[in-house]
Protein backbone atom coordinates (compact mmCIF):
# COMPACT_ATOMS: atom_id res chain seq x y z
CA UNK A 1 0.00 0.00 0.00
CA UNK A 2 2.93 2.30 0.71
CA UNK A 3 3.60 3.02 -2.97
CA UNK A 4 -0.04 3.98 -3.50
CA UNK A 5 0.11 6.62 -0.76
CA UNK A 6 0.26 9.63 -3.08
CA UNK A 7 -2.64 8.35 -5.16
CA UNK A 8 -4.75 7.71 -2.06
CA UNK A 9 -3.94 11.16 -0.81
CA UNK A 10 -5.04 12.75 -4.08
CA UNK A 11 -8.25 10.78 -4.01
CA UNK A 12 -8.86 11.78 -0.42
CA UNK A 13 -8.34 15.41 -1.34
CA UNK A 14 -11.32 15.04 -3.66
CA UNK A 15 -9.49 14.77 -6.97
CA UNK A 16 -11.02 13.06 -9.98
CA UNK A 17 -8.58 10.64 -11.61
CA UNK A 18 -8.93 9.97 -15.32
CA UNK A 19 -6.74 8.84 -18.19
CA UNK A 20 -6.06 12.45 -19.11
CA UNK A 21 -4.94 13.84 -15.78
CA UNK A 22 -2.95 10.79 -14.70
CA UNK A 23 -2.89 7.81 -16.98
CA UNK A 24 -0.71 5.71 -14.71
CA UNK A 25 -2.94 6.06 -11.66
CA UNK A 26 -5.99 5.60 -13.82
CA UNK A 27 -4.73 2.21 -14.95
CA UNK A 28 -4.05 1.27 -11.34
CA UNK A 29 -7.65 2.04 -10.47
CA UNK A 30 -8.88 -0.15 -13.29
CA UNK A 31 -7.55 -3.11 -11.37
CA UNK A 32 -10.41 -4.46 -9.26
CA UNK A 33 -8.16 -6.16 -6.71
CA UNK A 34 -6.32 -2.96 -6.05
CA UNK A 35 -9.58 -1.07 -5.69
CA UNK A 36 -10.65 -3.68 -3.11
CA UNK A 37 -7.45 -3.00 -1.17
CA UNK A 38 -8.06 0.74 -1.39
CA UNK A 39 -11.63 0.32 -0.21
CA UNK A 40 -10.48 -1.71 2.74
CA UNK A 41 -8.12 1.08 3.70
CA UNK A 42 -10.74 3.78 3.11
CA UNK A 43 -13.52 2.02 5.03
CA UNK A 44 -12.88 3.73 8.41
CA UNK A 45 -12.95 7.07 6.60
CA UNK A 46 -16.42 6.20 5.25
CA UNK A 47 -15.17 6.34 1.71
CA UNK A 48 -14.88 4.02 -1.26
CA UNK A 49 -13.51 4.26 -4.75
CA UNK A 50 -16.31 5.01 -7.22
CA UNK A 51 -16.39 5.48 -10.97
CA UNK A 52 -18.82 6.94 -13.46
CA UNK A 53 -21.03 4.84 -15.74
CA UNK A 54 -18.55 4.34 -18.54
CA UNK A 55 -15.60 4.02 -16.18
CA UNK A 56 -13.75 7.01 -17.58
CA UNK A 57 -13.18 8.71 -14.24
CA UNK A 58 -12.55 7.58 -10.65
CA UNK A 59 -13.24 9.45 -7.42
CA UNK A 60 -14.20 8.78 -3.79
CA UNK A 61 -17.81 8.37 -2.71
CA UNK A 62 -19.30 7.86 0.73
CA UNK A 63 -19.98 4.32 1.94
CA UNK A 64 -22.64 5.22 4.44
CA UNK A 65 -24.83 8.21 3.79
CA UNK A 66 -24.70 9.65 7.24
CA UNK A 67 -26.21 13.01 8.06
CA UNK A 68 -22.81 14.57 7.77
CA UNK A 69 -22.17 12.95 4.40
CA UNK A 70 -25.52 14.13 3.10
CA UNK A 71 -24.72 17.64 4.16
CA UNK A 72 -21.50 17.59 2.20
CA UNK A 73 -23.23 16.08 -0.81
CA UNK A 74 -25.94 18.75 -0.63
CA UNK A 75 -23.34 21.45 -0.56
CA UNK A 76 -21.44 20.01 -3.50
CA UNK A 77 -24.59 19.39 -5.48
CA UNK A 78 -25.69 22.97 -4.97
CA UNK A 79 -22.32 24.16 -6.26
CA UNK A 80 -22.50 21.88 -9.28
CA UNK A 81 -26.02 23.01 -10.11
CA UNK A 82 -24.92 26.61 -9.86
CA UNK A 83 -22.15 26.01 -12.35
CA UNK A 84 -24.27 23.80 -14.59
CA UNK A 85 -25.64 26.37 -17.01
CA UNK A 86 -22.36 28.29 -17.33
CA UNK A 87 -20.53 25.02 -17.98
CA UNK A 88 -23.04 23.94 -20.63
CA UNK A 89 -22.84 27.33 -22.27
CA UNK A 90 -19.09 27.18 -22.25
CA UNK A 91 -19.17 23.77 -23.92
CA UNK A 92 -21.48 25.11 -26.62
CA UNK A 93 -19.28 28.13 -27.10
CA UNK A 94 -16.13 26.05 -27.54
CA UNK A 95 -17.86 23.67 -29.91
CA UNK A 96 -19.18 26.49 -32.06
CA UNK A 97 -16.07 28.63 -31.98
CA UNK A 98 -13.79 25.78 -32.96
CA UNK A 99 -16.30 24.37 -35.41
CA UNK A 100 -16.24 20.93 -33.83
CA UNK A 101 -18.51 18.15 -35.05
CA UNK A 102 -19.72 16.98 -31.70
CA UNK A 103 -19.86 18.23 -28.15
CA UNK A 104 -16.69 18.37 -26.09
CA UNK A 105 -15.68 15.12 -24.55
CA UNK A 106 -12.85 13.81 -22.43
CA UNK A 107 -9.48 13.96 -24.15
CA UNK A 108 -10.31 16.82 -26.53
CA UNK A 109 -7.63 19.45 -26.71
CA UNK A 110 -8.26 23.17 -26.77
CA UNK A 111 -5.60 25.68 -27.70
CA UNK A 112 -6.47 28.89 -25.97
CA UNK A 113 -5.02 30.93 -28.80
CA UNK A 114 -7.16 29.21 -31.43
CA UNK A 115 -10.25 29.68 -29.33
CA UNK A 116 -9.45 33.31 -28.66
CA UNK A 117 -8.82 34.16 -32.30
CA UNK A 118 -12.07 32.49 -33.35
CA UNK A 119 -14.07 34.29 -30.67
CA UNK A 120 -12.55 37.68 -31.36
CA UNK A 121 -13.47 37.35 -35.04
CA UNK A 122 -17.14 36.98 -34.27
CA UNK A 123 -19.18 39.69 -32.59
CA UNK A 124 -21.91 37.38 -31.35
CA UNK A 125 -19.38 34.97 -29.85
CA UNK A 126 -17.66 37.86 -28.09
CA UNK A 127 -20.95 38.93 -26.58
CA UNK A 128 -21.85 35.47 -25.41
CA UNK A 129 -18.39 34.94 -24.02
CA UNK A 130 -18.38 38.20 -22.11
CA UNK A 131 -21.83 37.45 -20.74
CA UNK A 132 -20.51 34.09 -19.60
CA UNK A 133 -17.39 35.63 -18.06
CA UNK A 134 -19.54 37.84 -15.86
CA UNK A 135 -21.36 34.87 -14.40
CA UNK A 136 -20.65 34.43 -10.73
CA UNK A 137 -19.03 31.09 -11.43
CA UNK A 138 -16.29 32.70 -13.52
CA UNK A 139 -16.17 36.08 -11.78
CA UNK A 140 -14.23 37.95 -14.39
CA UNK A 141 -13.83 41.64 -13.65
CA UNK A 142 -12.06 42.51 -16.87
CA UNK A 143 -13.78 43.84 -19.96
CA UNK A 144 -11.05 42.67 -22.32
CA UNK A 145 -11.94 39.49 -24.20
CA UNK A 146 -8.49 37.90 -23.77
CA UNK A 147 -8.54 38.39 -20.02
CA UNK A 148 -12.11 37.10 -19.81
CA UNK A 149 -11.18 33.97 -21.74
CA UNK A 150 -8.15 33.39 -19.52
CA UNK A 151 -10.27 33.77 -16.41
CA UNK A 152 -12.95 31.37 -17.69
CA UNK A 153 -10.40 28.70 -18.53
CA UNK A 154 -8.62 29.22 -15.25
CA UNK A 155 -11.83 28.72 -13.30
CA UNK A 156 -12.82 25.65 -15.29
CA UNK A 157 -9.38 24.24 -14.62
CA UNK A 158 -9.95 24.86 -10.93
CA UNK A 159 -13.28 23.09 -11.17
CA UNK A 160 -11.42 20.08 -12.56
CA UNK A 161 -12.90 19.91 -16.04
CA UNK A 162 -9.72 21.03 -17.77
CA UNK A 163 -6.16 19.88 -17.43
CA UNK A 164 -3.15 21.95 -18.38
CA UNK A 165 -0.27 19.62 -19.22
CA UNK A 166 2.34 22.41 -19.24
CA UNK A 167 2.13 25.15 -16.71
CA UNK A 168 3.32 27.91 -19.01
CA UNK A 169 1.63 26.80 -22.22
CA UNK A 170 -1.96 27.78 -22.79
CA UNK A 171 -3.15 24.49 -24.08
CA UNK A 172 -5.77 22.46 -22.28
CA UNK A 173 -7.23 18.96 -22.36
CA UNK A 174 -10.76 18.14 -21.32
CA UNK A 175 -10.75 15.73 -18.38
CA UNK A 176 -12.93 12.73 -17.62
CA UNK A 177 -14.82 14.78 -15.05
CA UNK A 178 -16.80 16.26 -17.91
CA UNK A 179 -18.32 12.83 -18.52
CA UNK A 180 -19.54 12.89 -14.96
CA UNK A 181 -21.16 16.26 -15.61
CA UNK A 182 -22.89 14.96 -18.75
CA UNK A 183 -24.14 11.98 -16.80
CA UNK A 184 -25.54 14.34 -14.21
CA UNK A 185 -27.32 16.34 -16.91
CA UNK A 186 -28.80 13.18 -18.36
CA UNK A 187 -29.85 12.07 -14.90
CA UNK A 188 -31.54 15.37 -14.12
CA UNK A 189 -33.31 15.32 -17.47
CA UNK A 190 -34.71 11.84 -16.83
CA UNK A 191 -35.45 12.37 -13.19
CA UNK A 192 -37.23 15.69 -13.55
CA UNK A 193 -39.00 14.57 -16.72
CA UNK A 194 -37.81 17.69 -18.45
CA UNK A 195 -39.70 18.27 -21.69
CA UNK A 196 -36.52 18.55 -23.71
CA UNK A 197 -36.65 15.29 -25.62
CA UNK A 198 -39.04 16.46 -28.31
CA UNK A 199 -37.36 17.87 -31.32
CA UNK A 200 -38.54 21.40 -31.83
CA UNK A 201 -37.61 23.12 -35.06
CA UNK A 202 -35.93 25.97 -33.27
CA UNK A 203 -33.60 23.71 -31.36
CA UNK A 204 -32.89 21.70 -34.43
CA UNK A 205 -31.79 24.84 -36.16
CA UNK A 206 -29.44 25.64 -33.32
CA UNK A 207 -27.87 22.30 -33.71
Amino acid sequence: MIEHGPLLERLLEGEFICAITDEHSFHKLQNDEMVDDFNHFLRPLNRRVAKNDDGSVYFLAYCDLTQNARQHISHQFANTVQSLLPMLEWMQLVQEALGRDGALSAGDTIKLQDFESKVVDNQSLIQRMSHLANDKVFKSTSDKPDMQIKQIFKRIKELGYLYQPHKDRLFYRVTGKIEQLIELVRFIKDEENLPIDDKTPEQEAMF
Partner: protein
Amino acid sequence: MTQSPKQKSTAPSNPLFALGKERLELIGKHADALMQGYLEGRLKESSFSRQGLQKLLDSRVLFYPEEQSLSLRPIVNELIASLTQDERKRQINTDVGEHLDQIDTRVQSLQAARHKGDYAASEHHMQLLTERVNDMTGQFGDAIESLWHRLNTEFGFVSSLDDKMLEIELAQRQLRRILDGFGIINFDDLIQLAGSDGGLRKLLVSQLQARISEHSGSLLEVQKRLVLLMARFRQQQDRALLINRMSAFLRQHPNFQMSDYPNRSQVPAVINHAHGISAQAFIAIDRPQDSYALAELARAVPREPQQHSLSEKQTEGFVMAVQNLVATEQKQLAKDVEDFFIQVIDSPHALSGVDYLAEKELSWEPEMWLFQIVAEYQGLPQQNKQSFMLDKDSAQQSRFNHLHLIQDVTVGMRFFGDFQAAS
Protein backbone atom coordinates in the same frame (compact mmCIF):
# COMPACT_ATOMS: atom_id res chain seq x y z
CA MET B 1 -66.39 -5.16 -38.86
CA THR B 2 -69.75 -3.55 -39.36
CA GLN B 3 -68.74 -2.37 -42.79
CA SER B 4 -67.72 -5.68 -44.27
CA PRO B 5 -71.22 -7.07 -44.97
CA LYS B 6 -72.11 -3.82 -46.59
CA GLN B 7 -69.06 -4.00 -48.86
CA LYS B 8 -69.85 -7.55 -49.74
CA SER B 9 -73.27 -6.51 -50.87
CA THR B 10 -71.97 -3.64 -53.03
CA ALA B 11 -68.99 -5.53 -54.43
CA PRO B 12 -70.65 -7.76 -56.98
CA SER B 13 -72.80 -4.93 -58.22
CA ASN B 14 -69.73 -3.03 -59.45
CA PRO B 15 -68.06 -4.79 -62.42
CA LEU B 16 -64.84 -2.76 -62.02
CA PHE B 17 -64.44 -4.10 -58.48
CA ALA B 18 -64.66 -7.68 -59.63
CA LEU B 19 -62.26 -7.19 -62.54
CA GLY B 20 -59.70 -5.33 -60.42
CA LYS B 21 -59.84 -7.95 -57.74
CA GLU B 22 -59.37 -10.71 -60.29
CA ARG B 23 -56.30 -8.99 -61.78
CA LEU B 24 -54.70 -8.35 -58.39
CA GLU B 25 -55.29 -11.96 -57.48
CA LEU B 26 -53.72 -13.00 -60.75
CA ILE B 27 -50.59 -11.01 -59.90
CA GLY B 28 -50.57 -12.51 -56.40
CA LYS B 29 -50.83 -15.98 -57.84
CA HIS B 30 -47.76 -15.51 -60.01
CA ALA B 31 -45.92 -13.34 -57.50
CA ASP B 32 -42.77 -15.50 -57.42
CA ALA B 33 -42.30 -15.66 -61.17
CA LEU B 34 -43.15 -11.98 -61.65
CA MET B 35 -40.72 -10.82 -58.97
CA GLN B 36 -38.04 -13.00 -60.51
CA GLY B 37 -38.78 -11.27 -63.80
CA TYR B 38 -38.61 -7.86 -62.14
CA LEU B 39 -35.17 -8.59 -60.74
CA GLU B 40 -33.76 -10.17 -63.87
CA GLY B 41 -35.39 -7.82 -66.33
CA ARG B 42 -37.00 -10.58 -68.40
CA LEU B 43 -39.26 -13.60 -67.89
CA LYS B 44 -39.22 -17.17 -69.04
CA GLU B 45 -42.33 -18.48 -70.67
CA SER B 46 -41.60 -21.83 -69.09
CA SER B 47 -42.37 -20.53 -65.61
CA PHE B 48 -46.03 -20.10 -66.50
CA SER B 49 -48.68 -22.47 -67.75
CA ARG B 50 -49.95 -21.73 -71.25
CA GLN B 51 -53.27 -20.63 -69.80
CA GLY B 52 -51.70 -18.56 -67.09
CA LEU B 53 -49.38 -16.84 -69.56
CA GLN B 54 -52.30 -15.97 -71.79
CA LYS B 55 -54.20 -14.56 -68.83
CA LEU B 56 -51.24 -12.42 -67.77
CA LEU B 57 -50.85 -11.11 -71.30
CA ASP B 58 -54.59 -10.40 -71.54
CA SER B 59 -54.69 -8.56 -68.25
CA ARG B 60 -51.82 -6.33 -69.45
CA VAL B 61 -49.37 -7.49 -66.81
CA LEU B 62 -46.89 -8.96 -69.27
CA PHE B 63 -46.12 -8.18 -72.88
CA TYR B 64 -43.73 -9.01 -75.71
CA PRO B 65 -41.83 -5.88 -76.60
CA GLU B 66 -40.95 -5.80 -80.28
CA GLU B 67 -39.18 -9.03 -81.15
CA GLN B 68 -37.87 -9.38 -77.64
CA SER B 69 -38.40 -11.78 -74.83
CA LEU B 70 -41.36 -11.71 -72.50
CA SER B 71 -41.26 -8.77 -70.06
CA LEU B 72 -43.23 -7.04 -67.36
CA ARG B 73 -45.14 -4.07 -68.59
CA PRO B 74 -43.36 -0.84 -67.54
CA ILE B 75 -46.34 0.14 -65.41
CA VAL B 76 -46.03 -3.10 -63.42
CA ASN B 77 -42.31 -2.53 -63.03
CA GLU B 78 -43.05 0.91 -61.64
CA LEU B 79 -45.70 -0.47 -59.35
CA ILE B 80 -43.23 -2.92 -57.83
CA ALA B 81 -40.53 -0.26 -57.59
CA SER B 82 -42.84 2.16 -55.82
CA LEU B 83 -44.17 -0.55 -53.52
CA THR B 84 -40.66 -1.53 -52.52
CA GLN B 85 -39.69 2.16 -52.47
CA ASP B 86 -36.38 1.69 -54.11
CA GLU B 87 -35.80 3.50 -57.35
CA ARG B 88 -32.05 3.24 -57.08
CA LYS B 89 -32.20 -0.45 -56.49
CA ARG B 90 -33.91 -0.93 -59.79
CA GLN B 91 -31.27 1.22 -61.38
CA ILE B 92 -28.27 -0.79 -60.31
CA ASN B 93 -30.06 -4.05 -60.84
CA THR B 94 -30.71 -3.24 -64.44
CA ASP B 95 -27.07 -2.15 -64.71
CA VAL B 96 -25.86 -5.54 -63.59
CA GLY B 97 -28.65 -7.18 -65.55
CA GLU B 98 -27.46 -5.40 -68.65
CA HIS B 99 -23.93 -6.61 -68.10
CA LEU B 100 -25.19 -10.14 -67.68
CA ASP B 101 -27.33 -9.86 -70.80
CA GLN B 102 -24.40 -8.71 -72.83
CA ILE B 103 -22.23 -11.46 -71.45
CA ASP B 104 -24.92 -13.88 -72.46
CA THR B 105 -25.14 -12.62 -76.05
CA ARG B 106 -21.36 -12.38 -76.31
CA VAL B 107 -21.01 -16.01 -75.27
CA GLN B 108 -23.57 -17.01 -77.86
CA SER B 109 -21.76 -15.13 -80.59
CA LEU B 110 -18.51 -16.70 -79.45
CA GLN B 111 -19.95 -20.16 -79.62
CA ALA B 112 -21.47 -19.46 -83.00
CA ALA B 113 -18.09 -18.29 -84.29
CA ARG B 114 -16.38 -21.37 -82.92
CA HIS B 115 -19.00 -23.52 -84.51
CA LYS B 116 -18.21 -22.02 -87.83
CA GLY B 117 -14.53 -22.50 -87.12
CA ASP B 118 -13.88 -18.78 -87.47
CA TYR B 119 -10.88 -18.60 -85.19
CA ALA B 120 -10.23 -14.88 -85.51
CA ALA B 121 -13.84 -13.94 -84.75
CA SER B 122 -14.01 -16.24 -81.74
CA GLU B 123 -10.77 -14.79 -80.42
CA HIS B 124 -12.22 -11.31 -80.84
CA HIS B 125 -15.42 -12.28 -79.05
CA MET B 126 -13.44 -13.86 -76.23
CA GLN B 127 -11.50 -10.64 -75.80
CA LEU B 128 -14.66 -8.57 -75.67
CA LEU B 129 -16.18 -11.01 -73.22
CA THR B 130 -13.16 -10.75 -70.92
CA GLU B 131 -13.41 -6.98 -71.10
CA ARG B 132 -17.08 -7.12 -70.27
CA VAL B 133 -16.57 -9.33 -67.22
CA ASN B 134 -13.72 -7.15 -66.02
CA ASP B 135 -15.88 -4.09 -66.52
CA MET B 136 -18.55 -5.52 -64.31
CA THR B 137 -16.25 -6.55 -61.47
CA GLY B 138 -14.36 -3.31 -61.94
CA GLN B 139 -17.56 -1.37 -61.37
CA PHE B 140 -18.12 -3.18 -58.12
CA GLY B 141 -14.51 -2.60 -57.19
CA ASP B 142 -14.76 1.13 -57.88
CA ALA B 143 -17.92 1.45 -55.85
CA ILE B 144 -16.37 -0.36 -52.92
CA GLU B 145 -13.20 1.66 -53.17
CA SER B 146 -15.13 4.89 -53.07
CA LEU B 147 -16.92 3.62 -49.96
CA TRP B 148 -13.61 2.82 -48.31
CA HIS B 149 -12.21 6.17 -49.18
CA ARG B 150 -15.15 7.96 -47.63
CA LEU B 151 -14.97 5.77 -44.57
CA ASN B 152 -11.29 6.35 -44.01
CA THR B 153 -11.74 10.10 -43.99
CA GLU B 154 -14.74 9.61 -41.72
CA PHE B 155 -16.76 11.60 -44.19
CA GLY B 156 -14.50 14.57 -43.57
CA PHE B 157 -15.67 16.24 -46.77
CA VAL B 158 -18.90 17.32 -45.10
CA SER B 159 -18.62 19.46 -42.02
CA SER B 160 -21.70 18.98 -39.93
CA LEU B 161 -22.54 15.88 -38.01
CA ASP B 162 -25.99 15.75 -39.58
CA ASP B 163 -24.47 15.68 -43.05
CA LYS B 164 -22.11 12.93 -41.99
CA MET B 165 -24.98 10.83 -40.81
CA LEU B 166 -26.81 11.41 -44.08
CA GLU B 167 -23.65 10.37 -45.91
CA ILE B 168 -23.53 7.16 -43.93
CA GLU B 169 -27.11 6.40 -44.77
CA LEU B 170 -26.32 7.03 -48.41
CA ALA B 171 -23.30 4.75 -48.20
CA GLN B 172 -25.42 2.07 -46.60
CA ARG B 173 -27.92 2.26 -49.42
CA GLN B 174 -25.12 2.07 -51.95
CA LEU B 175 -23.74 -0.96 -50.17
CA ARG B 176 -27.11 -2.64 -50.25
CA ARG B 177 -27.37 -1.96 -53.97
CA ILE B 178 -24.00 -3.58 -54.60
CA LEU B 179 -25.10 -6.59 -52.58
CA ASP B 180 -28.29 -6.73 -54.62
CA GLY B 181 -26.15 -6.65 -57.72
CA PHE B 182 -24.19 -9.63 -56.42
CA GLY B 183 -27.47 -11.36 -55.82
CA ILE B 184 -28.42 -11.10 -59.47
CA ILE B 185 -25.30 -12.86 -60.66
CA ASN B 186 -26.49 -16.42 -60.86
CA PHE B 187 -23.56 -18.77 -61.06
CA ASP B 188 -25.72 -21.73 -62.03
CA ASP B 189 -26.70 -19.85 -65.17
CA LEU B 190 -23.11 -18.90 -65.84
CA ILE B 191 -21.96 -22.49 -65.42
CA GLN B 192 -24.55 -23.56 -67.89
CA LEU B 193 -23.52 -20.79 -70.23
CA ALA B 194 -19.86 -21.73 -70.07
CA GLY B 195 -20.76 -25.35 -70.75
CA SER B 196 -17.74 -27.56 -71.19
CA ASP B 197 -15.46 -24.79 -72.44
CA GLY B 198 -12.52 -24.55 -70.02
CA GLY B 199 -11.58 -20.97 -70.89
CA LEU B 200 -15.10 -19.71 -70.48
CA ARG B 201 -15.51 -21.61 -67.28
CA LYS B 202 -12.41 -20.05 -65.88
CA LEU B 203 -13.47 -16.55 -66.90
CA LEU B 204 -17.15 -16.71 -66.06
CA VAL B 205 -17.13 -18.98 -63.06
CA SER B 206 -13.94 -19.41 -61.10
CA GLN B 207 -12.44 -15.94 -61.70
CA LEU B 208 -15.70 -14.11 -61.29
CA GLN B 209 -16.56 -16.04 -58.19
CA ALA B 210 -13.20 -15.29 -56.64
CA ARG B 211 -13.60 -11.59 -57.35
CA ILE B 212 -17.15 -11.50 -56.06
CA SER B 213 -16.31 -13.26 -52.83
CA GLU B 214 -13.37 -10.93 -52.37
CA HIS B 215 -15.70 -7.98 -52.83
CA SER B 216 -18.23 -9.49 -50.46
CA GLY B 217 -15.62 -9.80 -47.74
CA SER B 218 -14.58 -6.23 -48.27
CA LEU B 219 -18.20 -5.09 -48.20
CA LEU B 220 -18.77 -6.88 -44.94
CA GLU B 221 -15.88 -4.97 -43.44
CA VAL B 222 -17.29 -1.71 -44.82
CA GLN B 223 -20.62 -2.53 -43.30
CA LYS B 224 -19.11 -3.15 -39.89
CA ARG B 225 -17.25 0.13 -40.01
CA LEU B 226 -20.36 1.99 -41.13
CA VAL B 227 -22.34 0.65 -38.21
CA LEU B 228 -19.56 1.59 -35.78
CA LEU B 229 -19.23 5.09 -37.19
CA MET B 230 -22.95 5.58 -37.15
CA ALA B 231 -23.08 4.56 -33.50
CA ARG B 232 -20.31 7.00 -32.69
CA PHE B 233 -21.88 9.86 -34.61
CA ARG B 234 -25.24 9.19 -33.00
CA GLN B 235 -23.61 9.30 -29.60
CA GLN B 236 -21.96 12.61 -30.40
CA GLN B 237 -25.19 14.00 -31.75
CA ASP B 238 -27.05 12.84 -28.71
CA ARG B 239 -24.56 14.54 -26.46
CA ALA B 240 -24.64 17.82 -28.34
CA LEU B 241 -28.42 17.76 -28.35
CA LEU B 242 -28.51 17.06 -24.64
CA ILE B 243 -26.22 19.98 -23.91
CA ASN B 244 -28.10 22.35 -26.18
CA ARG B 245 -31.51 21.44 -24.91
CA MET B 246 -30.58 21.42 -21.26
CA SER B 247 -28.94 24.82 -21.48
CA ALA B 248 -31.91 26.18 -23.44
CA PHE B 249 -34.22 24.81 -20.80
CA LEU B 250 -32.24 26.27 -17.93
CA ARG B 251 -32.10 29.64 -19.66
CA GLN B 252 -35.86 29.64 -20.11
CA HIS B 253 -36.49 28.55 -16.53
CA PRO B 254 -34.02 30.50 -14.43
CA ASN B 255 -35.86 29.63 -11.22
CA PHE B 256 -36.04 25.95 -11.89
CA GLN B 257 -35.70 24.00 -8.66
CA MET B 258 -34.28 20.51 -8.72
CA SER B 259 -35.38 17.85 -6.33
CA ASP B 260 -33.45 17.39 -3.15
CA TYR B 261 -31.47 14.39 -4.36
CA PRO B 262 -28.93 14.45 -1.53
CA ASN B 263 -31.64 13.85 1.06
CA ARG B 264 -33.49 11.08 -0.70
CA SER B 265 -33.43 7.70 0.95
CA GLN B 266 -31.52 6.46 -2.07
CA VAL B 267 -28.88 8.99 -2.97
CA PRO B 268 -28.16 8.73 -6.71
CA ALA B 269 -24.66 7.48 -7.40
CA VAL B 270 -24.00 10.31 -9.80
CA ILE B 271 -23.90 12.89 -7.01
CA ASN B 272 -22.27 10.76 -4.33
CA HIS B 273 -18.87 12.38 -4.25
CA ALA B 274 -17.04 12.57 -0.95
CA HIS B 275 -15.66 15.94 0.13
CA GLY B 276 -11.93 16.34 0.15
CA ILE B 277 -9.88 15.87 3.30
CA SER B 278 -6.29 16.93 3.48
CA ALA B 279 -4.07 14.88 5.72
CA GLN B 280 -1.86 17.41 7.47
CA ALA B 281 1.23 16.50 9.42
CA PHE B 282 3.42 18.52 11.77
CA ILE B 283 6.95 18.40 13.09
CA ALA B 284 7.22 15.87 15.88
CA ILE B 285 10.39 15.45 17.88
CA ASP B 286 9.28 12.52 19.97
CA ARG B 287 11.23 10.04 17.86
CA PRO B 288 14.99 10.38 18.35
CA GLN B 289 15.76 8.72 15.01
CA ASP B 290 14.08 11.62 13.20
CA SER B 291 16.13 14.32 14.89
CA TYR B 292 18.93 14.32 12.33
CA ALA B 293 16.55 14.69 9.37
CA LEU B 294 14.61 17.41 11.16
CA ALA B 295 17.77 19.29 11.97
CA GLU B 296 18.78 19.14 8.32
CA LEU B 297 15.41 20.56 7.36
CA ALA B 298 15.61 23.28 9.95
CA ARG B 299 19.03 24.31 8.67
CA ALA B 300 17.72 24.45 5.12
CA VAL B 301 14.96 26.87 6.06
CA PRO B 302 15.80 30.26 4.57
CA ARG B 303 16.18 32.91 7.23
CA GLU B 304 14.03 35.71 5.97
CA PRO B 305 12.19 35.38 2.70
CA GLN B 306 11.74 38.91 1.45
CA GLN B 307 10.44 38.29 -2.05
CA HIS B 308 6.81 39.12 -1.56
CA SER B 309 6.82 42.65 -2.89
CA LEU B 310 8.32 41.69 -6.24
CA SER B 311 5.15 41.92 -8.27
CA GLU B 312 4.26 45.32 -6.82
CA LYS B 313 7.61 46.66 -7.78
CA GLN B 314 7.11 45.79 -11.43
CA THR B 315 3.95 47.80 -11.73
CA GLU B 316 5.32 51.00 -10.17
CA GLY B 317 6.85 53.87 -12.03
CA PHE B 318 10.43 55.03 -12.13
CA VAL B 319 10.28 57.50 -9.23
CA MET B 320 8.87 54.86 -6.99
CA ALA B 321 11.64 52.53 -8.07
CA VAL B 322 14.31 54.98 -6.89
CA GLN B 323 12.55 55.41 -3.58
CA ASN B 324 12.35 51.69 -3.32
CA LEU B 325 16.06 51.42 -3.94
CA VAL B 326 16.74 53.72 -1.00
CA ALA B 327 14.25 51.85 1.13
CA THR B 328 15.89 48.53 0.28
CA GLU B 329 19.29 49.92 1.22
CA GLN B 330 17.89 51.16 4.46
CA LYS B 331 16.39 47.78 5.13
CA GLN B 332 19.65 46.05 4.31
CA LEU B 333 21.48 48.29 6.75
CA ALA B 334 18.94 47.59 9.47
CA LYS B 335 19.26 43.89 8.76
CA ASP B 336 23.05 43.97 9.01
CA VAL B 337 22.79 45.78 12.32
CA GLU B 338 20.32 43.21 13.48
CA ASP B 339 22.80 40.50 12.52
CA PHE B 340 25.39 42.35 14.49
CA PHE B 341 23.19 42.29 17.58
CA ILE B 342 22.55 38.58 17.04
CA GLN B 343 26.27 38.05 16.80
CA VAL B 344 26.59 39.91 20.10
CA ILE B 345 24.12 37.53 21.69
CA ASP B 346 25.98 34.51 20.35
CA SER B 347 29.38 35.84 21.20
CA PRO B 348 30.97 35.17 24.58
CA HIS B 349 32.26 38.72 24.85
CA ALA B 350 31.33 42.25 23.88
CA LEU B 351 31.95 43.28 20.28
CA SER B 352 33.27 46.42 18.72
CA GLY B 353 31.11 47.87 15.97
CA VAL B 354 34.04 48.97 13.82
CA ASP B 355 35.78 45.61 14.17
CA TYR B 356 32.63 43.80 13.17
CA LEU B 357 32.24 46.02 10.13
CA ALA B 358 35.79 45.24 9.01
CA GLU B 359 35.51 41.56 9.81
CA LYS B 360 32.31 41.07 7.81
CA GLU B 361 33.61 43.31 5.01
CA LEU B 362 30.39 45.24 4.89
CA SER B 363 30.26 48.18 2.57
CA TRP B 364 28.68 50.71 4.91
CA GLU B 365 30.40 53.91 5.88
CA PRO B 366 31.63 53.56 9.48
CA GLU B 367 29.82 56.69 10.55
CA MET B 368 26.52 55.53 9.13
CA TRP B 369 27.09 52.10 10.57
CA LEU B 370 27.76 53.31 14.12
CA PHE B 371 24.83 55.67 13.95
CA GLN B 372 22.57 52.81 12.96
CA ILE B 373 23.85 50.65 15.83
CA VAL B 374 23.16 53.39 18.32
CA ALA B 375 19.78 54.04 16.80
CA GLU B 376 18.93 50.36 16.89
CA TYR B 377 20.00 50.18 20.51
CA GLN B 378 17.95 53.22 21.43
CA GLY B 379 15.02 51.86 19.48
CA LEU B 380 14.89 48.64 21.39
CA PRO B 381 11.99 48.11 23.75
CA GLN B 382 12.93 49.01 27.32
CA GLN B 383 12.94 45.43 28.47
CA ASN B 384 15.30 44.25 25.72
CA LYS B 385 17.48 47.29 26.07
CA GLN B 386 18.32 46.26 29.59
CA SER B 387 19.84 43.04 28.29
CA PHE B 388 22.44 44.95 26.33
CA MET B 389 25.13 47.36 27.27
CA LEU B 390 26.45 49.91 24.86
CA ASP B 391 29.71 51.67 25.43
CA LYS B 392 30.60 54.62 23.27
CA ASP B 393 34.27 55.16 22.59
CA SER B 394 34.29 58.86 22.02
CA ALA B 395 36.63 61.77 22.32
CA GLN B 396 36.00 65.43 22.92
CA GLN B 397 36.84 67.32 19.76
CA SER B 398 37.67 70.67 21.29
CA ARG B 399 38.03 72.19 24.68
CA PHE B 400 35.66 75.02 23.79
CA ASN B 401 32.57 73.07 23.16
CA HIS B 402 31.09 69.74 24.12
CA LEU B 403 31.30 68.11 20.72
CA HIS B 404 32.16 64.43 21.11
CA LEU B 405 33.03 62.31 18.13
CA ILE B 406 32.25 58.63 18.56
CA GLN B 407 35.12 56.50 17.29
CA ASP B 408 33.58 53.17 18.05
CA VAL B 409 30.84 51.49 20.04
CA THR B 410 31.12 48.32 21.97
CA VAL B 411 28.04 46.30 22.52
CA GLY B 412 27.73 43.37 24.89
CA MET B 413 25.26 41.49 27.02
CA ARG B 414 24.59 42.97 30.43
CA PHE B 415 25.63 40.64 33.21
CA PHE B 416 25.15 42.00 36.68
CA GLY B 417 25.62 45.51 35.50
CA ASP B 418 28.66 44.80 33.39
CA PHE B 419 29.68 43.21 30.07
CA GLN B 420 29.41 39.44 29.86
CA ALA B 421 33.14 39.21 29.84
CA ALA B 422 35.93 41.63 30.18
CA SER B 423 36.53 43.24 26.87
